């Protein structure tokens, strides 16, 4: 949210969502516009509230991790992985290297599918149906691979405490398939990206709009590709021990606009392909899961992971029976929200929606513990507000 400037005259408000073609997920955008120019934007993100954190409380830790995967269907692997990293850190559980490699593999598969669904969404918002469809078509390659590895296109359920499910172990024939698919994908993908960059109509829609300067990106805690497209070099993968064996570049662009947010993701896909090749080539032998651990009391532990949209944090403790206590998640989109709201100010309404889409909003994960400051120095949940004031004011 930008600073409130009371001298500004606002002519009217437009609101979209939660059921709307540009959003798909339930959230509500309120645009405050003058003529057609957005002066301020508010994004309401509580429509998919499921009480996740409350669900975790008191569950045995192995079961809780299955809920963690259900935080989101795009980042499913990320949440499952980071949830087990917390307890692996906290209780010092060894993870066999083969398991780590396969976790990274699935993470990069999902990063590619996530970035391609981003293209699908962004081009649908640009209005270019054909490019959106081609992105979804390219994505199918990796959806298939996820199905082969984990047993489902969306929820591969690969990580478990101490390693991965043996279901997801890579066989030799699977390794071959992966390499073949990646090569076939890479050629087509390069063509696709070139096609986008060559198209003046599309570029004219994305170039130079939705500016988010580096200062603003840092100020509003933009993370992931949204921040990196604004010139902020920050990628947690460079710090993670799981990614130590792999060689890849962090893509940082300094265009700060919608175009760069698209291009940044486009280039990241190529880096992911690089990592996938390395995983498959150097996959160490050995067991995939270490089952020598027992859940016992664990102090609050936090783990961070670079997801497809930025940094995710999971934290919880275990009580003396090994039950999960006080689970908390902070997801990348929640920190990107303020940046989105800021970036779309000053543009045409249609472009503002594109800007929001270009930050890759996906809000299922953000909508959990919902606390709102009603402006009178007290916080109320939405539940309380609605009970008190009804649905509308």
């Amino acid at each position, binding site marked *: 949210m930008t600073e409130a400037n009371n001298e500004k005259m606002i002519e009217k408000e437009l609101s979209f969502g939660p059921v709307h073609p540009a959003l798909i997920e339930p959230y509500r955008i309120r645009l405050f516009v003058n003529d057609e120019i957005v002066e301020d934007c508010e994004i309401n993100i509580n429509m998919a*509230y499921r009480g996740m954190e*409350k669900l975790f409380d008191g569950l045995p830790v192995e079961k809780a991790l299955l809920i963690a995967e259900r935080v989101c269907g795009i980042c499913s692997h990320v949440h499952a992985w980071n949830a087990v990293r917390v307890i692996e850190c906290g209780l010092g559980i060894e993870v066999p290297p083969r398991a780590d490699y396969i976790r990274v593999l699935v993470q990069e598969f999902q990063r590619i599918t996530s970035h391609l669904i981003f293209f699908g969404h962004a081009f649908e918002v640009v209005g270019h149906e054909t490019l959106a469809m081609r992105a979804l078509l390219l994505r199918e390659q990796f959806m298939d691979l996820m199905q082969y590895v984990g047993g489902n296109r969306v929820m591969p359920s690969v990580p478990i405490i101490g390693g991965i499910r043996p279901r997801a172990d890579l066989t030799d024939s699977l390794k071959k398939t992966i390499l073949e698919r990646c090569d076939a994908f890479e050629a087509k993908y390069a063509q696709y990206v070139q096609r986008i960059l060559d198209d003046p109509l599309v570029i004219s829609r994305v170039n130079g709009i939705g500016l988010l300067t580096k200062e603003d990106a840092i100020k509003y805690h933009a993370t992931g590709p949204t921040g990196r497209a604004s010139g902020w070099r920050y990628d947690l993968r460079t710090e993670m021990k799981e990614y130590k064996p792999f060689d890849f570049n962090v893509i940082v662009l300094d265009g700060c606009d919608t175009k760069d947010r698209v291009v940044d993701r486009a280039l990241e896909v190529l880096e992911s392909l690089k990592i996938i090749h390395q995983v498959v080539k150097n996959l160490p032998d050995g067991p995939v899961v270490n089952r020598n651990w027992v859940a016992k009391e664990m102090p609050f532990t936090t783990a961070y992971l670079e997801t497809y949209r930025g940094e995710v944090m999971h934290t919880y403790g275990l009580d003396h029976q090994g039950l999960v206590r006080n689970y908390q998640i902070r997801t990348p989109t929640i920190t990107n929200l303020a940046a989105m709201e800021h970036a779309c100010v000053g543009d045409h309404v249609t472009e503002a929606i594109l800007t929001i889409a270009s930050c890759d909003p996906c809000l*299922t994960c953000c909508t959990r513990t919902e606390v709102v400051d009603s402006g009178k120095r007290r916080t109320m949940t939405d539940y309380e507000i609605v009970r008190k004031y009804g649905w509308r004011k």
Partner: protein
Amino acid sequence: MTLKSTSRKKAIHVMLCYTGGCNGCDIEVVNALLSPRYDLEQYGVMLTWNPREADVLIVSGVVSWQMLEPLKKIYSLIPEPKAVVAVGACACNGNVYKNLVGDIKVNEDVYAPVESVIPVDVKVPGCAPRPEEIIQGAVKGLPKLMGAP
């Protein structure tokens, strides 16, 4: 077959209402609709975002309490005859959100299954179901549409 039932079979408008699962089913529905590999349009099904135009409402996800009113409202605005397809375990039975809860034992924040909110005609199980299963589910909703007065 009368002109009425033929026309209902040949042209179907679906609307997607995602009410608060994990997003996974939602993306798979979009895949079924938009990905050229599945291409829902070849079966005479078109995507719309306008309840006034829709025949089939695809609901995915448990119904969060904030989506309860919008869902009911959208359902009520679809002109008869209409069918509802519940996609995914969330919409069919509440999935982990409703059935695998910790200390608190009941999750009051979600309404599940969708059946408890609006009448459901077809259920597509799976978490997440594959697009072809979703399409087959939507096709199974046809007899109800065709048979309606």
